Each structure stands twice: as structure tokens, then as C-alpha cells.
């Protein structure tokens, strides 16, 4: 009996939420992070990533089923005062936002959303790995036009009002990694070795003045610098207008679940 419930619990959220969020397989590989924990190459395992950022409409489904994440119910230690700032009530937000990426969600909320679907937030490495792809290249980081477009999009205000999926997808079939909202990652504070945003030591310093020498890859590093600076300014309970999320899943776990379902 217990086993049946467990299996149901695993399958149900998938079948309900899976309808409006299609996942895309990303074949892992070895890559050199632009900037971060180490200068060495990093192995990224195969994984699934949501094709789109989570929309306000999709997030509404989630809060309907999970009262503790409603705007009026949420615990302050999990989300600060700006949680779902654009929403006028627990189940209501301006109609025009329905298909825009949900914003003003904390890391706790984003992670809970993903967990309810049997998913999780992508790691920084997974996110960066998927995001280095352009429309036709898996690693377009040396494509100066690709980098330029990213840099320009970082300067464009109010892109969180755009609708998800209106830009073209990258070579994996993933939309809107760039040009719309920053996205939460599982280990967003990973480059701070102690895991503490207010820490004064080590790698954090590289984000301020006198950061390491930048060589030939300036343009590509500058775009990454901005993302890493953004991440390290966050706390897990922060809610920002310019920050949304999407979910990921191990390729491994997926296979395991398929086995259970069968």
C-alpha cells in the first residue's frame, strides 16, 4: 500500500505539471567554467532542463495546491516582503503577466516548486553549460556576436514583461536562458567558498576591484562576470523582479522513475 502511494506521489505531479512544462534532454560533457570555483574543467552529467522559464500562470497552479507558498501564507524566513510583488492577491495577478516568467520568487520557493514536480533547480554548472549554446552551436562562447547580444540584453530594462518562448530556442531546444530574467540555480552561492554572502574572503574579492587579469576572452568573461556577480549578491529569501527560475532533473533519476512507473 505504502509503495503504491509512493509511486502515485511520484507520478501524479509529473502527469499534472508535465503538461505545461516540457523538458529537454541536455547531453552533458566537459567544459571550462567562465569564472567560478576553479579554473579546471568541470564534468557535467546528462540532465533534463525545462524548455521555458516557469510562468506566472504555472506558478499559480502551484500555490493553489500548496497553501504554504501563497502570498499571504509564506513564512518570512523563506521569502522576504517582496514575494510575488506583482500579484494583487493569493490567486490573482495582472492578466498580461500570465505567460511572462514568474518573478519575485525566493530560492526556497523555486526549489519547492521544482520538488513538487519531482525536479530540482539546475546547478550553476548545468545552467551555464546549457546557456553557452546559441541557436546552432553547443558552445558559442567564442562567437562574439552571441556574447554581444547577451551583454546588450543585460542592459535592456523590464525584460521580465516579455512572454516566455517568444525568443528563438538554442540548439538544445531551450528558450529564454538569456534576454529575459536571471534564473535561480541550486548552488547559486557556490563561488563563495564558505557559502556565506557576507563573507569577506577568498573568491568574493574577485568580483570587486582588482579582479584577476582578463585576457583574450574579455567579452565572454564579462557576460559571465555579471551573472556570477548577480548570483553572489543574492540571499536565498530574496525576491527580485529580474529573477525567475526553471527546473532540472538528473537523467539518472529519470531512468529510475521510468523503471518504477513500469
Amino acid at each position, binding site marked *: 500500500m505504502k509503495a503504491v502511494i509512493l509511486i502515485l506521489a511520484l507520478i501524479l505531479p509529473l502527469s499534472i505539471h508535465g503538461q505545461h512544462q516540457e523538458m529537454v534532454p541536455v547531453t552533458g560533457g566537459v567544459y571550462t567554467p567562465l569564472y567560478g570555483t576553479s579554473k579546471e574543467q568541470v564534468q557535467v552529467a546528462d540532465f533534463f532542463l525545462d524548455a521555458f522559464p516557469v510562468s506566472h500562470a504555472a506558478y499559480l497552479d502551484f500555490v493553489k495546491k500548496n497553501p504554504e507558498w501563497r502570498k499571504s501564507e509564506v513564512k518570512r524566513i523563506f521569502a522576504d516582503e517582496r514575494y510575488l510583488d506583482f500579484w494583487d492577491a493569493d490567486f490573482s495577478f495582472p492578466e498580461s503577466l500570465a505567460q511572462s516568467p514568474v518573478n519575485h520568487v525566493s530560492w526556497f520557493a523555486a526549489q519547492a516548486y521544482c520538488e513538487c514536480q519531482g525536479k530540482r533547480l539546475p546547478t550553476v554548472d548545468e545552467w551555464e553549460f546549457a546557456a553557452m549554446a546559441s541557436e546552432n552551436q553547443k558552445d558559442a562562447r567564442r562567437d562574439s556576436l552571441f556574447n554581444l547580444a547577451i551583454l546588450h540584453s543585460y542592459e535592456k*530594462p523590464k525584460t521580465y514583461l516579455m512572454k516566455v518562448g517568444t525568443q528563438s530556442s538554442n540548439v538544445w531546444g531551450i528558450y529564454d536562458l538569456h534576454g529575459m530574467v536571471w534564473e535561480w540555480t541550486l548552488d547559486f552561492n557556490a563561488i563563495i567558498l564558505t557559502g556565506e554572502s557576507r563573507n569577506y574572503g577568498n573568491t568574493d574579492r574577485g568580483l*570587486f*576591484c582588482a579582479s584577476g587579469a582578463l585576457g583574450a576572452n574579455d567579452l565572454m568573461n564579462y557576460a559571465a562576470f555579471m551573472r556570477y556577480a*548577480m548570483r553572489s549578491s543574492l540571499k536565498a529569501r*530574496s525576491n527580485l523582479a529580474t529573477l525567475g527560475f526553471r527546473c532540472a532533473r538528473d537523467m539518472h533519476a529519470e531512468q529510475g522513475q521510468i523503471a518504477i512507473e513500469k
Partner: protein
Amino acid sequence: MASCSKKPIHMETEIKIYSKNGLKYLFILLMGSILLSCNGGKLEHQNYFSSSADKYANIKIFGEEQAVLTSPPLVPPPVGNRPAKKLYMEMEIIEKEAEMADGVSYLYWTFGGTVPGSFVRTRVGDLVEFKIKNHPDNKLPHNIDLHAVTGQGGGAEASFVAPGQEKTFSFKVINPGLYVYHCATAPVGMHIANGMYGLILVEPEGGLPPVDKEFYVMQGDFYTDGKFGQPGLQPFNMQKAIDENPDYVVFNGSVNGLNGENALAANTGESIRIFFGNGGPNLASSFHVIGEIFDKVYVEGGSQINANVQTTLVPAGGAAILEFVADVPSNLVLVDHSIFRAFNKGALGVLAVSGEENPQVFAGEIMEGIYLPEGSVIQNMPKSELEIEAPTDLSKADRIEAGKKLYMQACFACHQSNGEGVPNAFPPLAQSDYLNADVNRSIDALLYGLSGEIEVNGKKYNSIMPAQQLSNEEVANVLTYVYNSWNNNGNLVSPEMVKNRRK
């Protein structure tokens, strides 16, 4: 043979060892004498660093107040002889689109909504509680590194703040002087290039000597995809920034930052103090005021005062305090005397001084004559025959609009933005009888230049206007603008009319 040749080498080594030992003893002796005079050394050390932390960090605080921060070109009131206080101040970081030049806009990142950011005025010994707020609509995290702050990153780490968040940090100002502050979030160069800099003044005990007028001016270089003057919203160009090749070098954030309605104003006889900073990110400034000499310059914003200075070099991330008395009425022109920046990239501002003439200081022109060297005086580069202009058919209103932008780039430095010219030097275009009398003569003046004596509105002028390298279209636009401004006769000049005047 082999053993023979080794011996002398061995000898030499021994000698060296002896001499080294000798040095050792000498060293010990010297150390001893230094140790003996150690107390005196400490005193000297204290005197040498007297105006630093030791002295000022212990200044007592009397009371507290909310500090006033001002937008350029204004500065908050002087500290006078108030005691050191606890000061509360707030600054909001706003990313916003604003005008870079006529018809050109740029997405600035600002401290307090302006470039440069709000002016902070303190007194040495003040304890500052600084709240920094990152507007929720902003895309990026920011922070502030104040060069006046002694501590980790000048406050950069303590003030690192995500959009929609605020942070408060505290510091004591212990060195008097004029200091730059700027954003120091990665990529630092980009944050500064987008306008994130300003000045913080730390006045000495008793304050700076009082003056009649104080202004806040800051230079910055900007890097855009489009060239200087190319209309529309211009994005930041990272490659040009890395190459240190700016399209704009401006005062107070834009080409018009200190021009037209933004020009500074003073009266004759007033003492003037300019707090001048250079945000960079790349260029050092050769700051100069055309028509004045700085009576005093606080070199590099520090305590050393130089007198009678023509041009002062202000490094990126540096500042200087400049003082002078406006002796005669004139339009003083502020420039970066790396002069192409002034006339081609926007580093040009006006301080209008009005009041009584003072012939003892400036008598104006006292004699004129004709100087005729061999050859022609006015030279021009022939335009390429191959250049073909696309035919365009603009309305009069469009021509006036386009002509105005061109005027503000090519003409206003001499003829002034309101067309009144400069007495005795550059004839007026406003209500000008000379201009309205003959349209072809006006076209010729632009195409071929104009020299020799002319009479405009009853006054004689004898100077040289160089030929302008403008297309037919551009000449038509700028002249149509001039003819339709300042009570002139409203002529419409067409490109065909210009073409017909080309020989």
C-alpha cells in the same frame, strides 16, 4: 693544469667570505644605533603621518543629522565650523535611459539618478551611516567604493546589494580632501563606463574658506555602438571600452551637461570654486577653463595648493578643487584641453559670467589691421567628385529639426546656442541683417569659409570662419534651422541651392 686553475678561485672565495663578515658587523653596528634612536624615530613617524588616522580617528562626535546630498552641478552647504557629527545619508541606485546628446540616448547606471552621482559633503571626523538602495527595477547588483573610506574595498564589499535590496554601512572620514566614489561590482569597468561615479568632499576642521559660488563638475568617457552624434538609443560597446577609444567625453554625463540651459552662471567679481572630478573609466583629463586662470588648485584634491595654474591634470578616479575670481563678463568655456575631445566628443561646457566690463583686466580689441601672407588664407579640402548624395525630400520642419542637432555640434561653440555670437569675435546669427540679406552668401560662408571685415547689425567683425566639411543636405538643414530661429526671415534652404553654389 686542472688543479692549478682551481686554486686561485678558492682563494677568491675566502676573501669574499671575510668581506661579507665585515659587512655583517657593520650592519649590526648600524642596527644598534638605529635601535638607540628608536624613541625619536617614533615621534618623527607620528609627525610625518600627523594628519592621518591617529589624529582624526579620535575626533569626538557631537550630535547627529541627516546629510543633504545634491545633484550636479549643485553642492550641499559648507560645513563651516560645525563639530564632527554622526551623518545619516541615503543614496538610490537607478538604471535609466537619458539623453547623451541631441537625439542620442543611453542607458545610464546612476547613483541618485544623475551622472555624476549625488555630491556628498562631510567634515573630517564625521561618522557616516550610509544607506545604499538598489531600485527593484534594476537588473544588476551594485555597490559603492568611496575613495574617502579607509577599509576593505572602500566599502565595496559591505555595500554589495542586489536589486530591490538596501544595505547600510558605516565609516569615519579621517582624511580631508576631495574624493571620487564609484561602483566596484564586476565588471567594474562597465559599471563605471555607464556613469556610476561621483564625488565625496571631506572638509578640514573649520571648513574650506568661504567663496561666493560653488559648482560640481565631473568628466567621464562613454563608449557607444554608434559614432558621436549617431541618433537613437546607443548601447554600451565593450570592445571600444577595452580599446580605450571613446565616442563621447563629456562633463556631467552628457554633451549638453553644461551647455544651454545647463550652463553654469556667475557674476563678475564673484569667487568661484569648482569641485572637479574625473570618473573615467579610461581617460585622464587636461582640465582647462578658456578665458580664466585658476588662482588656486588643490592638487589632486589633496592638501597641497598650487597657484596660477592654466591646465590641471586630473587622473581617472581622481579629483581637484579649483578656485578663481570671475574678473570680467564673458562666457568661460570649460574644456578637456586634450582638445579633440572638446570639439569632437563633447568635453565642453559654459560658465556664463555677467556683469560690468573691467577694461583694466581685459580691454578687448584695441587695434586691427590686415595681414596678408603669401598664398590663400582660407584653405579647404576639395570634396571627392565621386561622392554621391542620396536624394532626400525633407519637410521644412524636418530640416529645422536635423539642422538644430548639427548646429549644436558644429556651430554653437562660436555662434552660441542662442545665436547671439560672442561680442567682437564671432558675429551673431540671431536677428542678423547680414545673414538675412543674402542667402547665397550664407551658403558660401559654410562651403568656402568667410574672412575679412564684415558688418553685422551695425558692428564690425574681422575674423575667420573656416569652411565646413558638410554635405549639401547638411548645409541645407543647418541653414534652414538658422533662418528659422531667433527672429530671422524664415528662409528654406534646399540641397539644390547648396549644390548650385559649389563650383
